[in-house]
């Protein structure tokens, strides 16, 4: 079938291009209808409405309903048998946390377009997206508010990825799973350059594939794009796409009705039916994970048995969670479990907030893990990619709660081979539940390529005879159902001595019985290395390389030992974190904490500061010494009673509203912490109300505000005025690249300091 071609190019040809082409639906009706007619005459089957940017973000003050209704009427004016497709493009703003537009606000903007158009059009086309997250948001807005068909396309560049790093495969996986009706690529490149991208889409999409290339890559002259590809060259490559399996052809920038007439010769052609061998695949926005080898699921973000994490969740200290994510990624995890279930906390909101941030912080796919279906839904909704849901079980009510979520958000589901009667004893009974779950999934329209099974590890100390049942069930699921499998490995050793040995032995037994996704702590090198070795020995050369590279990297890591010759002061000065920690622990055996602070750490910091001012050392060394000192303080703090005498005082830091540059503020934070201050960091783009709230809650010694750009100094001024008006009594400090003493005075800040060090020194004198 055939789509129409470029709209902007036709507007330019008629000399009516404007900054807001959607307004032409009202001011230049005749010309708009004429463009549609020219494509109808050229032989297209689908007409795209002139509504690409008719959303409340790009057109906040216009009568969008009128614009959209008029656009649809004009598209219908000359149509004979064509389908009219409501065109929806990106909103032009980056979604949070890359940008500031929230997922929910973006959803509302798309929803408004969908609701306006749904009864007037034959379907929707979401096109030219480069951010998978925004596309997912738009697709949800269509599917939750309309039953009409929806096509989705993204724009890929020469690297074979979208601007935000998504591959055609990842797009195809998520869009297919979520139920887009056709999936494709448009814009940016000419047909020839799109070939590898089209091939990848054909390989991984089980939906019809749609291709709308540009007329090659243009050159720009006086703001006008000059295209040189001929109609014949364009059409001949498009013909080969049909032969490869592409079912819908169209054109983007630079194409015109002649191009569409040329490709319309393919209309009605039988395209080959693709045979798909869909593998179980989960993805982030940038990485896809399949289970053709053993893949580690990092278990560290799960509060069961982890006191520190539990505290972090209760206190809303998500930075702790994010650091755990980075650590596990670096240690070799392929995906991360995220379970935030702590009694009396709001696990739904926490799941949403953590998942949104993890989308940006880690490249790894996530396993959304909760016993609360509402938390699972929150995790899946705000996740950027194909998530793994942990879990569903054999209970019919549980399946009724979980499978619809999985279907809607395109998730893969991990089934637990248990039901309301608990975990069955024998492998045969667990296998029977696995079959029941798989059948259940199919009833909800979830294919086996989206299912995995966990045959449940029991502890060897309490239920020794059942360990082998877990393994037998694993083998049965692997051999008879062909599904990837998961086990929480370390459960086996609860209550046992020498847990590591039990764990790694059980791991090997499980791998030999078909385990593909051990859920373990990847920072445990023995287990991770064993898995790397296991993969290497299976005979895939890439896995052998991975093993060798990892082994070489580990040999090159210097072993950490508190050098006899080095003092704590030297270790801090040189920014050696591990040594500083080791030497602090050593010193604390014979020295009391306060004297260690006053006689070693503070003098060292003063010396480092003075060297920095004299330009004997520079910013990187100042920060690394401060970071080492901060580590030392953390050790000392743990020796004091809770909230003990180590606290020098509390400061609140924030980058003001509108400013997203927070590196300066983060340097200040490290320096303050190195001196033993407690820092409440409100982050960047901070609303003045949030700062006031923190003031009331913590009663800090001072508030520090940062702004990098001239434009955000205004926001700083507003913040200061607001805080003072609301009765904030503590001094307000300001800093940032464009500030001066003079400017600080003008905006009524109490103090200006030129750098982080001067800031801390000034506060110390207060």
């Amino acid at each position, binding site marked *: 079938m055939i789509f129409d071609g470029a709209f902007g190019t036709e507007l330019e040809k008629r000399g009516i291009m404007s900054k807001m082409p959607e307004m032409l639906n009202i001011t230049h009706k005749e010309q708009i209808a004429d463009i549609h007619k020219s494509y109808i005459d050229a032989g297209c089957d689908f007409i795209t409405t002139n509504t690409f940017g008719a959303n409340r973000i790009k057109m906040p003050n216009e009568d969008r309903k009128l614009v959209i209704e008029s656009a649809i009427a004009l598209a219908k004016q000359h149509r004979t048998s064509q389908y009219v497709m409501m065109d929806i493009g990106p909103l032009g*703003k980056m979604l949070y946390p*890359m940008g500031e537009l929230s997922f929910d606000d973006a959803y509302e903007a798309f929803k408004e377009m969908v609701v306006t158009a749904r009864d007037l059009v034959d379907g929707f086309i979401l096109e030219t997206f480069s951010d998978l997250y925004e596309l997912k948001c738009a697709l949800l807005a269509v599917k939750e508010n309309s039953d009409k068909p929806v096509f989705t396309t993204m724009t890929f*560049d020469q690297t074979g990825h979208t601007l*935000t790093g998504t591959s055609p495969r990842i797009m195809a996986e998520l869009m297919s799973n979520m139920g887009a009706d056709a999936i494709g690529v448009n814009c940016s490149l000419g047909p020839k350059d799109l070939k590898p991208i089209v091939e990848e889409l054909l390989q991984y999409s089980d939906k019809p594939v749609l291709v709308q290339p540009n007329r090659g890559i243009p050159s720009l002259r006086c*703001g006008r794009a000059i295209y040189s590809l001929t109609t014949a060259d364009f059409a001949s490559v498009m013909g080969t796409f049909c032969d490869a399996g592409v079912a819908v052809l169209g054109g983007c920038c630079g194409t015109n009705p002649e191009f569409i007439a040329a490709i319309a010769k393919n209309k009605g052609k039988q395209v080959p039916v693709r045979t798909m061998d869909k593998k179980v695949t989960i993805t982030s926005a940038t990485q896809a994970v399949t289970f053709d080898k053993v893949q580690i699921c990092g278990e560290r973000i799960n509060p069961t048995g982890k006191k520190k994490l539990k505290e972090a969740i209760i206190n809303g200290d998500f*930075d702790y969670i994010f650091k755990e994510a980075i650590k596990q990624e670096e240690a070799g995890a392929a995906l991360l479990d995220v379970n935030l279930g702590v009694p009396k906390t709001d696990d739904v909101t926490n799941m949403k907030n953590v998942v949104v941030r993890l989308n940006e912080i880690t490249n790894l796919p996530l396993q959304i893990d909760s016993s609360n279906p509402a938390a699972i839904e929150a995790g899946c909704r705000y996740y950027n990619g194909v998530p793994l849901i942990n879990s569903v079980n054999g209970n019919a009510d549980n399946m009724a709660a979980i499978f619809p979520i999985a279907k809607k958000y395109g998730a893969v589901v991990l089934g637990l081979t248990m039901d309301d009667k608990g975990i069955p004893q024998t492998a045969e009974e667990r296998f029977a539940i696995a079959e029941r779950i798989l059948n259940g999934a199919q009833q909800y329209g979830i294919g086996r390529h989206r299912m995995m099974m966990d045959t449940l590890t029991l502890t060897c100390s309490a239920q020794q005879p059942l360990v082998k049942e877990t393994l037998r069930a694993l083998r049965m699921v692997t051999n008879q159902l062909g599904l990837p499998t998961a086990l929480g490995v370390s459960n086996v050793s609860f209550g046992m001595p020498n847990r590591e040995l039990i764990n790694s032995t059980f791991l090997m037994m499980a791998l030999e019985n078909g385990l593909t996704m051990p859920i373990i702590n990847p920072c445990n090198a023995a287990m991770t290395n064993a898995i790397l070795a296991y993969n290497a020995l299976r005979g895939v050369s890439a896995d052998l390389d991975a093993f060798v590279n990892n082994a070489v990297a580990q040999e090159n890591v210097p072993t950490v030992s508190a050098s006899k010759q080095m003092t704590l002061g030297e270790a801090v000065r040189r920014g050696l974190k591990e040594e500083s920690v080791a030497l602090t622990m050593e010193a604390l055996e014979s020295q009391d904490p306060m004297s260690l602070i006053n006689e070693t750490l503070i003098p060292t910091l003063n010396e480092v500061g003075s060297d920095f001012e004299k330009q004997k050392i520079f910013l990187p060394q100042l920060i690394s010494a401060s970071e080492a000192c901060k580590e030392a303080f953390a050790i000392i703090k743990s020796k004091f009673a809770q909230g003990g005498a180590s606290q020098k005082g509390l400061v609140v830091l924030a980058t003001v509203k509108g*400013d997203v540059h*927070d590196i300066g503020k983060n340097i200040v934070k490290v320096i303050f912490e190195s001196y033993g201050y407690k820092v409440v960091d409100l982050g960047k783009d901070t609303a003045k109300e949030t700062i006031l709230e923190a003031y009331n809650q913590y009663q800090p010694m001072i508030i520090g505000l940062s702004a990098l750009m*001239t434009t955000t100094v205004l926001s700083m001024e507003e913040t200061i005025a607001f805080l003072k008006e609301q009765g904030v009594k503590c001094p307000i400090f300001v800093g940032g690249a464009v500030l001066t003493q003079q400017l600080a005075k003008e905006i009524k800040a109490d103090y200006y300091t030129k750098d982080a060090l001067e800031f801390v020194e000034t506060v110390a004198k207060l």
Partner: protein
Amino acid sequence: MIHQVLKYLGYPDGTVPDAAVMNQIEKACQEVAQASNFQYIYAQYEACPDFMKDIPAYQHYLSGADGLLLCATTLGVQVDRLLKRHQMNDMTYAVIFDAVASAYLEQQADLFERKIPFKHKGFRFCPGYGGTALTDSRQIAAILHAEKIGITFLDSGLMVPLKSMVGIVRLGGGSRKNCADCVAFPNCAFRLKGTTCWK
């Protein structure tokens, strides 16, 4: 490029950093080069856009020019993501990474501009330089449709990705970089040390 990185990190000209810092700079150079998805778009004009016509700083920069390019360039979102991640994990490295990313964008943009087929081109003049408003970036970006290379704006006028530039390049001879035109002039840390942020 290392020279520029050291400048951003506050090292006076001619200072050689210690081996640990150098190693981290090299690591960051590799990482930035790998993560960045450098994009540059431009369009050539005979006259400047209307909004620049009454602003002396642009007219001063463009006086005697044969025309101009509007340009927009970025390293893309992956560099931003890594920068945020490093700030969470290792501030020392994050500061180095940030300096390297800024220098890398300048370098890539300079290299790209060299290949644009005009013999005489001025330095890149970006809104925010003396006498011009940072918010002008948005108008240039709108003309170029810079969202096509992924450049978007926050309400405050800042760009996302952070490592992005929008500016103009004069065509024809006769323009040199000059601190007097700079927004940071009154408070510039480089000038206080007797140097400049550029070459």
